[in-house]
Every structure is written in structure tokens, then in C-alpha cells.
């Protein structure tokens, strides 16, 4: 099939019209001629001519009208036929016209219909316009459908548009890019629609012609639309009508309408012309603007509020900063004060303006300035400093301050500023000095005491040592005298010498005990863990002879605690207590028991030595621990009375306590409580222990 076939096919339809027209004219000419010839031959013929003449013209008109109507119908039928033919061909893929030519042919066809319609419209009333519009719309619709079908099948390519908004669907009447529609003034149904409008709404003219404009309007805006249209009918136009419409895809769009009424020669409204502008984007941007504006307003409000809060905070924290009980200041990288609080200013007494930009080195007391450079360099390197230094006040007084500073650096390690806090520690420093002095005094006193102790020890030792010598001589020579010259003396003389020996021996015991006592308080040996049971067994072995002589029994009631102490002194302690229990005992079978118990006070071990001896009256319980204190005559019980004093000294040197529970005739129990941890013995209490740095 070619375009020629198509064209001949399309124009074929002219023939019946032309034939009909020719026939009508011929008929009219025959009738006219017949009437004229009849009237010429007969007299009555003139009346027939008049009738023919009068009747001929309307008759011809009627025939012509009928024919043109028919023609119109015919054309429409042809177009419809053509459309379906092309459509089916396009779908089959068997149609092969030159696409642009085909399109031109259609244009021509449609224009033919339009011309026809225009001719008709010229004659018809406004009312009949609707029908013609429908016809045109159908043609329009058809052309759109054809082009769509062709485009889909790839047979038609729309010509390259002059601008990007080229619309191949624009109808002949509205070959415009604007969205324009014509509405029926009464029903508000579409009469005509520009392609742009159809695309915008998503409905073809055929669909639109069945719709009232109001159906397209968003339900909420319908009342407004009605009102506007009424005013248009009344006043002739309305501009800038903003409405929301809902298109075929159910999208809500904002449009601005300019509506004008169009009139015919009788001033009847033929239609309403609507010119649309899609203002969705504009509205949206307006909305956004509005929202933005609102947001900005809110933001502004919030900022104001924040500002107020900040101001309050500033006031509050400003007060905290300014009147804090510490001096705050900030230094720059040159060591100058950038900022400081009132406390600093008040403490130092300089006016603020003098403090700001002052080099902090100038605050230092003269003798502390030397160390500044190093300290500040350290601070810049480490970002932190803590030191005690001395500042000079405005009035020349100096105060001791404890300064702590933290630096804030940028990425290049340049000091931005620093947060420094200084505390006036003059009072504390004075106190420390005093404490230090007191400590030193105490240390000196301690040293003195230690020295005195040592001297005393030396003294005791030397005295007892030197006292021993003559005693030994005394004893030895008394013995020699008695042996060598005893027979030359009488009984009295011999007794005197015996007294001498006895006194010398007692003197020696006293001296020995004095020596032991002076040693007991001095714990020179190393402290170590001592198993009391083991220590007791050693002591019992040492005392074996005495135990045998007294026919006694010494029992260890295990378990005994393990304590911390000087092994030889603890042995001495146990020895003294056990031998006391044996010595002050009149039983046929003296029994001494050594036992331990856990004290209710944690950290203490308690040891007891119980005997079945003579017991001690409670009034003497304290006195028995005194040096050389004896409760019995030497004739009754031997001894110097140093044993328990020595025990007490040993216990005290271990930081412990000793006491006795006893009643006469019921035996005695000596208790020794010793701390588990080593407690520094009094004598070796060194000064470092007390020294507070």
C-alpha cells in the first residue's frame, strides 16, 4: 500500500457529494427552465415560474444542507474506517506508508473536516457547535490514536522538534503549547482541549467531553471553582484562579486558570475559554518558601530563646567563674594573661586592666623567675603543668600558689589558650612548714632518744661488765682464802667469808638481770615468723634440768599460733614465764601448760602460760611486772624479781600486752597478746616513719 492508494482511497469519498450536488443543480435548472418555457407559452405560466423560483432556492439549499450533513457523516465514517485500518495494519506490521506523508494526509483530512465544520458552524447556532466540536474532537482523538499506534510500531517518527516542548498531539485548532480548553458554559463539559491540556490531565478529548470540569477539580476546591465560573458567566472573565485538580493518575496538581467567556454575535456565551498554567512547582516552592519562612521564624525564636538562656547561663557561670574560690586565668603562647577571674584580681590586688596582657613571669616572686622559662617550655610541650610557686601581690607580699594548667592546642600544636587554676596555698604551706619543722624536731628528739638509749645501753653494759670483774675477783679470792687459810680462821671468820661470797653472787645475778632487762627492750634481731609451739619445745628442752628437779610437767596445748617477732626474745619470754610457773609452785607435781587462743580482736594472737602454783593476790597483779619487785623473801623463793619485768619489756617491744589472771592457791595464768603484723618497736622507731614529705 502506498500513499497514492491511500490518497485515492481517501478522496474517493468526494464523488457522491459532487454527484449529488451536480444532480441537485441540474434538477433545479431543469425545473427553472421548464417553468420559464411553460410561462412563455401559457399565460398562467408566470405564476409557476414564480413558484419554482421561490421554491427552488430553499429546495436547493435544503438539498445542499442534507448533502453537506451527509458529507460530514461520510467523512467521519471514512476517518474512523481509516483509523481502524491503519491501527490494525500497524499492529500487523504490514502497513508501509511514508510516515510523514501519511501524517500530512491525515492533517489534510482532518482539516477538510474542520473546514466543513467551520462552514457549517457559520450557519449553525451556538448550540450546534457542540456537535461539530465533538466531530472535530473525534477526529483529533483519532489522529492522536493513529500517531500513537504508528509511533508504537516504530513506523512513525515525529519530526525533530524546533523546541523541546514540541507536541505531536497538538490539534489543528490548538496547535499550541498552552493548556487551553473550551468548556460548555452550562454543563462545564469540555468542548475542546489542546493536546497539552489533554496530556496534562491525562484524558483524551473524548474522555474529557464526557466530563464536567468540576469532576477534575479537587473536591475541596469545587465550591471555589463553581463560584469562579459563575462570576465568569456574570462578568466575562476571571484571572489567576488557583485551583487544585486531580489528573487521571490521581495526582493533585496546582493550576492557575484564566477564564474568559466567548460570545457569538448575539452576545450569547458560546463557550468558556480556560487557559491553564501548571503552578504545582510554583505552589510547592511557594509552600516551601512559606514553610522555610515559618521554619526560619521558629528558628529565630529558638535562637532568641537560646540566646536568653545563654545570657542567663553566662551570668550564672560568669559569677561562678569570676568568684570561684580559686584563681582562674588563661595564658597565650607568650605566657601573657589573656583572661582572668575576679578572684585572681582580688587576691593579687592588681587592677584588671593591668593584669590582662601581663606576662605571668612578672607575677612570680623574683627568686622563682629563673625556673619560669623551663616550666613554660615544658607546659607548651606537654600541655599540662602542675607546680607550686610563689607569686608577688601588688602590695609586695608573696603568696604560695599551687598552679595547674591545661593547654588547648590547634592542629599545628600551637597553643590557642590555656586553662589555668591557681590556689593560694600559703596557709597550707605555712602549716606544712610548721609540720615539717615539728617533724624535724620530733626526728631530732627521736635521734636524741635513740642516742640516749644507746648510751644508756652502753652504760648498763659497761657498768655491769665492770661490776662483774671485781665480783669475780671477790668470789674467787674469797674461795681461795677459805680454802688456803680456812683453818686459820674461826667459825665466825669463815661465815663472814661465806656472806661475802653469797652477796657477791647475788650482786652478780642482779647485774645479769639488769643486763638482760636492758637488752629485752631492744629488739635487735630480725623479725620473723615464729611458731610458738616450736619455740616452746626449745625452751622446754633448755629447762629440762629444772623440770626434772621439780618433778614437773610442761604441756603444750596445740595448736599454738604463729607470731611475728624476734626469735631469741620470744624464747626468753617463754623461758621466763615457764620457769616462773615452775619456781613459784609448791605442788608435788607442778604442771605448766602453754596454750593459745584466737583473740576476739582480729590481728592479735594470744598466748597463755598456766600453772598450778601458789597464785598471786589481785592487788599485786600490776606490781609483779615492776623491776626487782619481789613478793616473797629470798629464803622462800630465789630470784631477783627481774623476770616478769623482762617479760613485759619484751612484749612491749613487740607491740603487745601482758597480763595475769590469778588467785592465791589457784595457780596463775599469764596472757600475752601479740599483733600478727610487725609493729615497729619503740626504740627503733625511725624518723623517716614520721616524716611527712
Amino acid at each position: 500500500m502506498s500513499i497514492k492508494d491511500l490518497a485515492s482511497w481517501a478522496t474517493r469519498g468526494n464523488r457522491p457529494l459532487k454527484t449529488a450536488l451536480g444532480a441537485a443543480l441540474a434538477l433545479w435548472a431543469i425545473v427553472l427552465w421548464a417553468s420559464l418555457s411553460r410561462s412563455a407559452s401559457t399565460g398562467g405560466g408566470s405564476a409557476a415560474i414564480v413558484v419554482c423560483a421561490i421554491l427552488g432556492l430553499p429546495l436547493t439549499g435544503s438539498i445542499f444542507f442534507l448533502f453537506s450533513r451527509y458529507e460530514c457523516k461520510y467523512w467521519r465514517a471514512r476517518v474512523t474506517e481509516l483509523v481502524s485500518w491503519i491501527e490494525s495494519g500497524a499492529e500487523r506490521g504490514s502497513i508501509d506508508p511514508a510516515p510523514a506523508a501519511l501524517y500530512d494526509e491525515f492533517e489534510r483530512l482532518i482539516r477538510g473536516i474542520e473546514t466543513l465544520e467551520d462552514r457549517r458552524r457559520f450557519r449553525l447556532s451556538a448550540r450546534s457547535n457542540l456537535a461539530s466540536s465533538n466531530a472535530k474532537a473525534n477526529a483529533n482523538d483519532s489522529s492522536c490514536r493513529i500517531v500513537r499506534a504508528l509511533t508504537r510500531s516504530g513506523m512513525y517518527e515525529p519530526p525533530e522538534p524546533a523546541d523541546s516542548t514540541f507536541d505531536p498531539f497538538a490539534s489543528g485548532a490548538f496547535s499550541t503549547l498552552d493548556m487551553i480548553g473550551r468548556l460548555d458554559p452550562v454543563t462545564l463539559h469540555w468542548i475542546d482541549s489542546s493536546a497539552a491540556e489533554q496530556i496534562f490531565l491525562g484524558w483524551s478529548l473524548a474522555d474529557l467531553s464526557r466530563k464536567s470540569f468540576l469532576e477534575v477539580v479537587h473536591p475541596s476546591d469545587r465550591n471555589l471553582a463553581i463560584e469562579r465560573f459563575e462570576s465568569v458567566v456574570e462578568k466575562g472573565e476571571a484571572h489567576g484562579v488557583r485551583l487544585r485538580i486531580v489528573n487521571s493518575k490521581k495526582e493533585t496538581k496546582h493550576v492557575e486558570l484564566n477564564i474568559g467567556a466567548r460570545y457569538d454575535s448575539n452576545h450569547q456565551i458560546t463557550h468558556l475559554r480556560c487557559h491553564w498554567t501548571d503552578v504545582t512547582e510554583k505552589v510547592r516552592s511557594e509552600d516551601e518558601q512559606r514553610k522555610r519562612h515559618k521554619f526560619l521564624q521558629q528558628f529565630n525564636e529558638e535562637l532568641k530563646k537560646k540566646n536568653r538562656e545563654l545570657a542567663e547561663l553566662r551570668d550564672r557561670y560568669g559569677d561562678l567563674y569570676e568568684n570561684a574560690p580559686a584563681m582562674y586565668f588563661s595564658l597565650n603562647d607568650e605566657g601573657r594573661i589573656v583572661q582572668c577571674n575576679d578572684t585572681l584580681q582580688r587576691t593579687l590586688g592588681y587592677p584588671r586592666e593591668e593584669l590582662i596582657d601581663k606576662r605571668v613571669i612578672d607575677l612570680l616572686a623574683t627568686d622563682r623567675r629563673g625556673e619560669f622559662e623551663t616550666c613554660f617550655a615544658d607546659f607548651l610541650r606537654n600541655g599540662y603543668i602542675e607546680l607550686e610557686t610563689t607569686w608577688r601581690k601588688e602590695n609586695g607580699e608573696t603568696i604560695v600558689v599551687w598552679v595547674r594548667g591545661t593547654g588547648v592546642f590547634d592542629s599545628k600544636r600551637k597553643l590557642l589558650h590555656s586553662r589555668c587554676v591557681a590556689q593560694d596555698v600559703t596557709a597550707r604551706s605555712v602549716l606544712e612548714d610548721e609540720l615539717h619543722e615539728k617533724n624535724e624536731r620530733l626526728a631530732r628528739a627521736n635521734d636524741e632518744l635513740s642516742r640516749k638509749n644507746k648510751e644508756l645501753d652502753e652504760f648498763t653494759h659497761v657498768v655491769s661488765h665492770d661490776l662483774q670483774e671485781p665480783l669475780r675477783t671477790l668470789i674467787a679470792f674469797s674461795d681461795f682464802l677459805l680454802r688456803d687459810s680456812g683453818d686459820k680462821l674461826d667459825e665466825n671468820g669463815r661465815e663472814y667469808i661465806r656472806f661475802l661470797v653469797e652477796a657477791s653472787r647475788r650482786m652478780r645475778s642482779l647485774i645479769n638481770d639488769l643486763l638482760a632487762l636492758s637488752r629485752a627492750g631492744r629488739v635487735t634481731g630480725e623479725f620473723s615468723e615464729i611458731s610458738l609451739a616450736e619455740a616452746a619445745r626449745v625452751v622446754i628442752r633448755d629447762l629440762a634440768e629444772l623440770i626434772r628437779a621439780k618433778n614437773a610437767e610442761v604441756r603444750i596445748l596445740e595448736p599454738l599460733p604463729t607470731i611475728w617477732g624476734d626469735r631469741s626474745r620470744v624464747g626468753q619470754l617463754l623461758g621466763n614465764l615457764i620457769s616462773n610457773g615452775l619456781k613459784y609452785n609448791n605442788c608435788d607435781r607442778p604442771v605448766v601448760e602453754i596454750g593459745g587462743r584466737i583473740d576476739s580482736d582480729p590481728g592479735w594472737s594470744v598466748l597463755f602460760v598456766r600453772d598450778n602454783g601458789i597464785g598471786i593476790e589481785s592487788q599485786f597483779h600490776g606490781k609483779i611486772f615492776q623491776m626487782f619487785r619481789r613478793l616473797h623473801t629470798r629464803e622462800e623463793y630465789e630470784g631477783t624479781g627481774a623476770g616478769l619485768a623482762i617479760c613485759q619489756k619484751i612484749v612491749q617491744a613487740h607491740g603487745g600486752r601482758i597480763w595475769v589472771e590469778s588467785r592465791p592457791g589457784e595457780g596463775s595464768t599469764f596472757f600475752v597478746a601479740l599483733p600478727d603484723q610487725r609493729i615497729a618497736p619503740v626504740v627503733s622507731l625511725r624518723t623517716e616513719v614520721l616524716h611527712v614529705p
Partner: protein
Amino acid sequence: MFPEFHILLVEDSRADTKIIERALREGKVEHRLTIVSDGGQAIDYLGRLRDPACPAGDEPDLILLDLNLPGIDGWQVLSTIKSDAFLRTIPVVVLTTSKRDEDVLQTYQAGANTYIQKPSEFPRYRELVVMLRKYWHETALKAPRDRAKDA
């Protein structure tokens, strides 16, 4: 019979000297006793032993040394003996009153062969000298000069 047991007694106290003498006598110890009463004399006496003219019998087999001496004290005498290669082989018995730990330790550190506290009772003196005699007999039969030669 035992060879002569030569004791050098360094003692300032006459009474103590007497006691030692009597103890030796009562203990029936064959002996020769040389007594010097202070540190200076002791060092002089020992110094003379280097003289080749000095009779071999003057060499003591044992020195009984008191620590508490006037002038040069016992420790000085002790350290002089023990730092001298010639004299150091002579056994030195320190005989003193003190039984202070520090003294004992110091004495041993100075090189004393033994440390004995002076007994408080005479009979113990007797036992002591007998014991010393026995000790010498068992350990010190060789003369110091011979031992020096061996070394």
C-alpha cells in the same frame, strides 16, 4: 711427755693473772707462762720473735688475750697478730668478761681463734685451762716457724 706448753697471757688485772696461774697449777697443766700487762708490751714481745737471735722457746703456743686493756686494747693486738703472716698462725684465745653479741662478733671478725667469757666461778677456770691444754696438744704441736716454712 707433752712438750712444754708456752702461754702468752695478755692481762692487766693482777687478780685475774693470779686466778689463771692458780687454775693452771690446780689443773696440773705443764706450762710456761709469759705475762704482759698491756697491748703495747704484747706487740713488743711478739715483734721480738722475728729476731733470728730470739730463742725458739720464746714463741708462745697460745695467746690468752684480754680485750679490755689500757692503751692499745685487745682488738688492736688481735688485728696486729692476724695481719702478720709470721704471727697469724699462733692461736689466739680471747678471754674476756663481756658476753655482748657485738663484742663476740667483732672479735671473731678480727680473726680470733676462739672467744671465751671469763667464768664467774673458779672451778670453771680450772676446766678451761685443762681444755685449752688439750686443744693445744691436739692441734698446735708444730711450731709456728716450721709451719711458716711449709707455707
